[in-house]
């Protein structure tokens, strides 16, 4: 069975994630917070390509994104875990295709990613965020990012799912 990761150009599309994160288009924001582009790219990839490829893709994306941020917290654990989980969902369960399912999975992924960052940043000696900052700014970012990611997922992830499945079936 053909795999997406064996096609170099498919993996290269992941470069769009750090580029979009840097560009942070102002139109696609809720209360000044943009979506998690990593979640929007990783979800269809992992659903089509399986848990191992999903975890590796999450790891790679996390490493790239950690290099673009100020530091104090890492996105690697959450993205790798999400890639593995979504890969298992794609392999074991019925195919995930409906807009609501994609939106829900993206929202859960974004919330999990945000919660892991919040946990790390709130730890003393890591990010050094005070309890007040965690409540004021952290929860705001967490919820706003979850919302905008869930809203964009049906559009972005559906197209990606179609495209990746087409590539896999063509190779087979």
């Amino acid at each position: 069975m053909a795999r997406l990761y064996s096609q170099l150009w498919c993996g290269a599309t992941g470069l769009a994630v750090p580029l979009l994160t840097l560009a942070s288009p102002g139109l696609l924001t809720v209360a000044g917070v943009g979506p998690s582009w990593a979640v929007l790219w990783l979800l269809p990839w992992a659903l089509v390509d399986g848990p191992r490829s999903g975890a590796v893709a999450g790891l790679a994306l996390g490493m790239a994104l950690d290099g673009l941020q100020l530091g104090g917290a890492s996105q690697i654990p959450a993205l790798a875990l999400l890639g593995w989980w979504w890969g298992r969902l794609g392999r074991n369960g019925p195919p995930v295709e409906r807009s609501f399912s994609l939106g829900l999975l993206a929202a859960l992924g974004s919330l999990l990613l945000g919660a892991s960052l919040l946990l790390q940043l709130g730890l003393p000696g890591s990010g050094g965020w005070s309890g007040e900052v965690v409540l004021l700014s952290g929860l705001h970012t967490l919820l706003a990012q979850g919302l905008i990611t869930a809203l964009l997922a049906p559009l972005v992830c559906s197209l990606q799912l179609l495209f990746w499945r087409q590539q896999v079936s063509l190779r087979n």
Partner: protein
Amino acid sequence: MNGRLPRVPTLQKLLQAWPWWLFLLALVGVRLSKGAFLTDAYALLSRPFWPGTAQGEWIQAATRLADQTRLAQLEQDNRRLRGLLDLQRGRGDAITAPVISRETGGWWQQLELGKGQLQGVAAGDPVLGPGGLLGLVQSVTPSTARVRLLTDPGSHVGVWVGRTQRHGLLIGQGTARPVLHFLDKDTGVRPGDVVSTSPASTLLPANVTVGVIQSVNDQAVPAPEAVVQLSAPLDAVDWVQVVPRRAGA
């Protein structure tokens, strides 16, 4: 002498001269009102000949010129005195850099600048924008620099309230308004006070505006706190100035 007395004017003649009586009454009125009517009438008649906007502009232009000259002289004096005190120099050799990426509402508040190590930018350099201090350079690559904004929760910058001459530590909250933590209990600050960098700072350019105090919490423990509205528009700034710290070394 025929012994005849001069004739007393009759009442009728007195009444016939009423315009003169009225004129006399008007003069008495002018005298009693200290010429109010006359000056008002003069003001009304001479209004077309009053000094117009042209004269006002000349005076304003002259005042501006005088202010600019005075400012240049003071800056020159300031540079000379700071040089004598071996403090940091002004912004003469600042590096102008474009903002190529901006994240002011996510997990981290940061800017990416389009100039880096090759152009002389180094970690720790202060970054100024229109309106005041924006943050400090956190890391550099050969052609880019990452700036931690004052609003980032990891940002801790020493600042100064000029009116009360109090130092404080400005700490980002992840929102648009960082909080100023004072070191003394009795600060005397109030909303509206301007916050700037310290005049004796060796890490930051001196006397750069940071923001304005919006509210003060005197009950905070262990020392009062104040919410600061930054003067530089972080969401809209497209070009910034990086002040190399070695300029003051």
